[in-house]
Structure formats: structure tokens, C-alpha cells
């Protein structure tokens, strides 16, 4: 047997062992545990604000705190909004209009974006003269930038179409750690509430949990039948939710290393583009290609609400840190605030 063939056999055998180890700890299912729990009542969220100003498809939105958010559009602009008043706090023109992601630093001092330019550009919002300028351009990915998230003002994690994720030192512009292992484009990432780990979803249909400091992949979750476009941590940090082109969302339990439940409906046949959990995690809001956003009861896996109002695909969604509202962004060029 050739070396390659031997390695392939070993990989298959290890995967079987992992499957068996997961089964061995599965002495209760979520469905059985919540059999006696009632589905939550119908959830009806209303549009409270519409943020108008972008001239083209919106690809990403990210809350900075529970009032300010940043959005990215292929009109070549990043806009920082005061969602209470709908005023534009900053309108930042981009060098490349092919933007696919944006992020707000937890401190509120910076925003970042990137896309088909393969770079992550960092902008300082608190410059001395009041102008927002590019602070750093992080270049090394050999594929598009699909997502980015700040750990702090000096570290940011990016995911890319080159199948890797990278932890960057913003000050020096260098790659601190490369997280390699996905076999397809990385589409989305989420940082754990304790900032020690992050998760990535990719076009190899898997989600991976990574240790930020030692660069290792700790866990890999499969089950989806197509690209994973959206991923997020459950609010308590112990579970992960994914959204896929296979029209379903899944909940994976980190502690038992397995899938707990799938959120799908025979009436939904289009891909999930984005998702966000509510403050308690009992609700999962998921944006779809069919212009709607469905609200799922995360424990009972039933649809309990829908956000309709956009005239095109819902491409991004985010819930404020205090859980008071959610923001949807769409290819119709508008952002809506709901609660």
C-alpha cells in the first residue's frame, strides 16, 4: 500500500473512531429531554427603524455596542450608524468596493472590512483630526476575505476563501497564527464569549472549533449537506449554531462533541445566509435566500415567527449585545432594526 493510501485509510478509521466516541456519550437526546416543554408562543417583531443610505447590496452588518452598528455594501462604503436616530456617524469610502464582511472592535475604536481584495483593512474611528483613515491593511490571504472579528484593538481573526483562518497582530500587520485544516473555502467565523476559542464554517460542509492560542483544531462538526454560510456561538459559549446552503441550521453541543438538533422545514428550500441567537438562546433568527428571516424555537425546533419586509435576500443579521433588538441587512440596500 502506498503512503498516501495508508494515510487515507488511517483518516477514515479515525473518523469512525470519533463517530463511535460520540455515540458512546449519547445517553440522552435533546428531543427526549424537552418532550414535555411547550413551544414558545408566536414571536412578532416589528420594524422599528429602516437605515437608508447604501446604494447597493448590503453584505454584512456588525453591532459595536447596543446602539452603533457598522454595515458594508458593494457600493464601496462602510457606514457606521446610530441605530436610535438612524443618523450616519461615519460614511467610509473603501478602496475596493467588493466588500464581503465588516466588523466593529469591542472597544468601539476601530472597524474592519475586506472581500475580493483578499485583504482585511482596519480603520481607526478615533483619529486625532476626526477623519477616519485606513490604519492597517492585513494582506497575506490568497483568497477572498469572507469574515473578520476583532479580539481586541490589536488582534483580529479573519476567514478566507483560501481555506484558512488567520490571527493577526494589527500593530505589525503580521500573521500570528494560521489555522489550516478546512478542505473548502472558509465562509464565516465566530469568537467564543471567553475569547479563548473561535469557530469557522466552510464549504467543506464542516464547522471547526479552534484554540486561539495554540492554533489547533479541537473539534470538527459535520452533518450539513452543503456549504456552511453562517456560524455563531450560543450565548453561553457551550454550543454552536450553523446555517447552510442545504436550507437547514444545526445546533452542535461542544461538551459532548455532537449535533443536537436540526432546524429545517420541508417548506424551506433555499439556503441560510446568516444567523444570530437571541439573548437567552431560546430563539434563533436565521436569514434566508428567499428574502425572509425565520425565528426558530431552539429547543423545540419549530418556527415561531418570521421577519418579512425586505425586497431581496437577507444577507446578514445581528442581535445587539444586550439582546434588545436585531438588525437585518439585505441585497435591497436597506438595514432594518426589529424588536
Amino acid at each position: 500500500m502506498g503512503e498516501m493510501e495508508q494515510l487515507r485509510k488511517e483518516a477514515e478509521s479515525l473518523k469512525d473512531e470519533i463517530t463511535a466516541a460520540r455515540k458512546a456519550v449519547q445517553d440522552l437526546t435533546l428531543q427526549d429531554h424537552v418532550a414535555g416543554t411547550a413551544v414558545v408562543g408566536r414571536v412578532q417583531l416589528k420594524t422599528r427603524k429602516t437605515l437608508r443610505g447604501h446604494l447597493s447590496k448590503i453584505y454584512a452588518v456588525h453591532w459595536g455596542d447596543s446602539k452603533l452598528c457598522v454595515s458594508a455594501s458593494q457600493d464601496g462604503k462602510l457606514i457606521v450608524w446610530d441605530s436610535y436616530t438612524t443618523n450616519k456617524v461615519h460614511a467610509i469610502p473603501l478602496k475596493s468596493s467588493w466588500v464581503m464582511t465588516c466588523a466593529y472592535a469591542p472597544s468601539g475604536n476601530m472597524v474592519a472590512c475586506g472581500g475580493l481584495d483578499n485583504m482585511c483593512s482596519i480603520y481607526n474611528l478615533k483619529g486625532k483630526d476626526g477623519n477616519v483613515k485606513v490604519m492597517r491593511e492585513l494582506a497575506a490571504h490568497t483568497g477572498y476575505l469572507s469574515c473578520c472579528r476583532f479580539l481586541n484593538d490589536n488582534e483580529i481573526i479573519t476567514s478566507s476563501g483560501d481555506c484558512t483562518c488567520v490571527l493577526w497582530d494589527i500593530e505589525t500587520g503580521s500573521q500570528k497564527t494560521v489555522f489550516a485544516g478546512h478542505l473548502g473555502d472558509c465562509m464565516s467565523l465566530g469568537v467564543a464569549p471567553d475569547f479563548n476559542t473561535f469557530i469557522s464554517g466552510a464549504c467543506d460542509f464542516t464547522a471547526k472549533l479552534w484554540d486561539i492560542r495554540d492554533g489547533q483544531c479541537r473539534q470538527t462538526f459535520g452533518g450539513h449537506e452543503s456549504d456552511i454560510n453562517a456560524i455563531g456561538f450560543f450565548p453561553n459559549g457551550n454550543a454552536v449554531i450553523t446555517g447552510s446552503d442545504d436550507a437547514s441550521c444545526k445546533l452542535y453541543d461542544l461538551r459532548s462533541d455532537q449535533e443536537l438538533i436540526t432546524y429545517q422545514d420541508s417548506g424551506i428550500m433555499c439556503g441560510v445566509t446568516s444567523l444570530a441567537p437571541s439573548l437567552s438562546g431560546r430563539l434563533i433568527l436565521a436569514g434566508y435566500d428567499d428574502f425572509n428571516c425565520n425565528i426558530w424555537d431552539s429547543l423545540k425546533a419549530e418556527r415561531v415567527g418570521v421577519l418579512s419586509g425586505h425586497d431581496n435576500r437577507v444577507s446578514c443579521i445581528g442581535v445587539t449585545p444586550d439582546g434588545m433588538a436585531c438588525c437585518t441587512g439585505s441585497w435591497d440596500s436597506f438595514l432594518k432594526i426589529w424588536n
Partner: protein
Amino acid sequence: MDELDETQLKNHVDSLKQQLQFNREKTSVTIPELTKWIEEKMNEDPFLNPDVLKDNPWVESSKCVII
């Protein structure tokens, strides 16, 4: 997996060996703890408890006044 070269395949196998070592807890422990966490938090969840949204920053709290 067919597109990987030998080094990548070796890394893939090493990663799988590491992932196999993960200390998996029983779902009879993790699921009840997860659902308990959720149920306790639901009271504070603005989308589930309308009382939390009484002061809604995105809704005008006062009516317009004609001056």
C-alpha cells in the same frame, strides 16, 4: 481528501488523532445544563419578555408636539 498532498494528508491524520482525544461529556449531563441555562435566561430575553422592552430605545417615547 483526494486533492491533498502527502504533508497535508499527514497533518489531516494528526489533527484527527488530536480531535479523537477530546474529553467528551455525556449528553445526560450537558443537555439538561444547556436547557437549564436557556430557561433561566429567558426571563431577561427582550424578545420573549415584553416587560424588558418597556423602555424601547428605538421607539419614540413621547408624542410629537405642535409648537
